[in-house]
């Protein structure tokens, strides 16, 4: 079975973003970019399925600018077999991403698609679910544990109240949560090997998808900043302030 892993190039999670003064967005010039951390977890899970002999091929896909090929190389260095780069220059909305991924699924016929539960830049938490709906497939979102069976999979999910297990028919889409696994670091030999693995370059029009954004961003502003308050010296003083000054206990 083939596993498809969409990986997104995003601002590194350690970077504190700055909103542009003209309110058109955030400043991404000269900012460190990395693979969306959830997508590292997806790649890890896919590669483990291959190592266990359950998956035959792991295909990484990224939709984004030319530099997203670096993100694909990271996936290849972690163990994915080949990459597909769908080149776009502007922002692509989750629905458009899902439509492109659907077309790729139609062509590649994977048994499992593993996406991140959210991308840490836009925090939409939509793409995997949209893809599943467009394909008419079931989904296991916010996955904590995967058990692959014959023709079906049991997915344990992180939900508001604890954990929930669902059984989905295959093919299916799974979106991963933080505790599914701990992604590996690519070793130097594997980074070298990854340079030789193939990356297919495509464009959205190859898939007949119009990626023109449909949500209009009118402005991007900075949230109100919290100011540091006071330091207290003792626990008693802290409780006194909470009770008598703030009135919250």
């Amino acid at each position, binding site marked *: 079975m083939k596993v498809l892993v969409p990986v997104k190039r995003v601002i590194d999670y350690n970077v504190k973003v700055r909103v542009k003064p003209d309110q058109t967005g955030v400043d991404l010039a000269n900012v460190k970019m990395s693979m969306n951390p959830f997508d590292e977890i997806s790649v890890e899970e896919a590669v483990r399925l291959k190592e266990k002999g359950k998956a035959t091929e792991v295909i990484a896909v990224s939709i984004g600018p030319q530099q997203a090929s670096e993100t694909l190389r990271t996936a290849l260095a972690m163990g994915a077999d080949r990459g597909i780069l769908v080149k776009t220059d502007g922002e692509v909305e989750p629905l458009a991403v899902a439509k492109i991924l659907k077309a790729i699924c139609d062509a590649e016929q994977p048994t499992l698609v593993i996406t991140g539960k959210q991308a840490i830049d836009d925090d939409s938490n939509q793409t995997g*679910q949209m893809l599943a709906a467009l394909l008419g497939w079931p989904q296991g979102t916010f996955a904590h544990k995967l058990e692959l069976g014959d023709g079906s999979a049991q997915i344990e999910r992180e939900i508001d109240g*604890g*954990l929930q297990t669902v059984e989905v028919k295959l093919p*299916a889409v799974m979106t991963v949560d933080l505790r599914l696994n701990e992604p590996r670091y690519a070793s130097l030999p594997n980074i070298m090997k990854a340079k030789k693995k193939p990356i297919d370059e495509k464009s959205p029009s190859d898939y007949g998808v119009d990626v023109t954004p449909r*949500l*209009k961003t009118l402005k991007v502003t900075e949230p109100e900043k919290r100011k540091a308050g006071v330091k207290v010296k003792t*626990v008693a003083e*802290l409780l006194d302030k909470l009770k008598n000054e703030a009135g919250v206990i």
Partner: protein
Amino acid sequence: MATLVIAEHDNKTLKDATAKVVTAAGQVGGPVHILVAGQGCDAVAQAASKIAGVEKVLVADDALYAKMVAETMETLILSLADKYDAILAPATTNGKNYMPRVAAKLDVPQVSEILSVVSSDTFVRPIYAGNALATVQAPAGKKVITVRTTTFKPAGEGGSAAIEKVSAAADPGLSKFVGEELSKSERPELTSAKIIISGGRGMQSGENFHMLDAIADKLHAAVGASRAAVDAGFVPNDYQVGQTGKVVAPDLYIAVGISGAIQHLAGMKDSKVIAAINKDEEAPIFQVADYGLVADLFKAIPEMNEELTKLGYK
């Protein structure tokens, strides 16, 4: 046309997230209807009908909806979608699970986790872990929206909406609920608690979290955690506060042994009052705390417990 709100509930009680989404729905416009999808959920429908400003409550009572599995929720909501301009759900793990499916099938973008309603088609939503706020305008056509409930006040009571049964939609037969392991607690839920005390890696063990439990019991607080504390296995996943966990905005948030990473702050910086206890006076959490105590938590927390007893908290 009308606006549809999808109720959040556990078949027995209606979660207050629903009343908050009703407030957002009222601002989007049109008469507000609520859909209660569940099994044996009469009490929930009754409670929903009492929310002020709600015109009608639709009830789909069927085994298919007992656990709000995404694939069945999708077909149910789509079977009703024709009559609505806008469909709203809370940004809970349920809402996040089924709503994007609905949006994709309606071929409209979903607007995720809105913080406020500017007009019937324009909303403010956080991006980059809440370090930027985007004002976005949805295209003409149906709006599919999830709502971050911490920023909307719950609609009051006093309504008397009509309750109407709707039939179950076709079962897509793609998935089924197998089981769940829910955290049991007598304490308030994280997302609705007035006071939260959260522990981080500094707590060192799950055992030590009981020190926070003792204080939580006295203050009627919920207990939360940083990702590091959850990853280390001190507490279950549903304790996690942050960009990729729960977003909370209580009256008081007490952070204990938490450094204050961007991703943690994203989940709690809208709290009214923040208190922090950390032994490192340079910890970033102090930059957002109203009250900071530089101290070893293993001294400060037992002391806080004693002081509270002295002050009469039981």
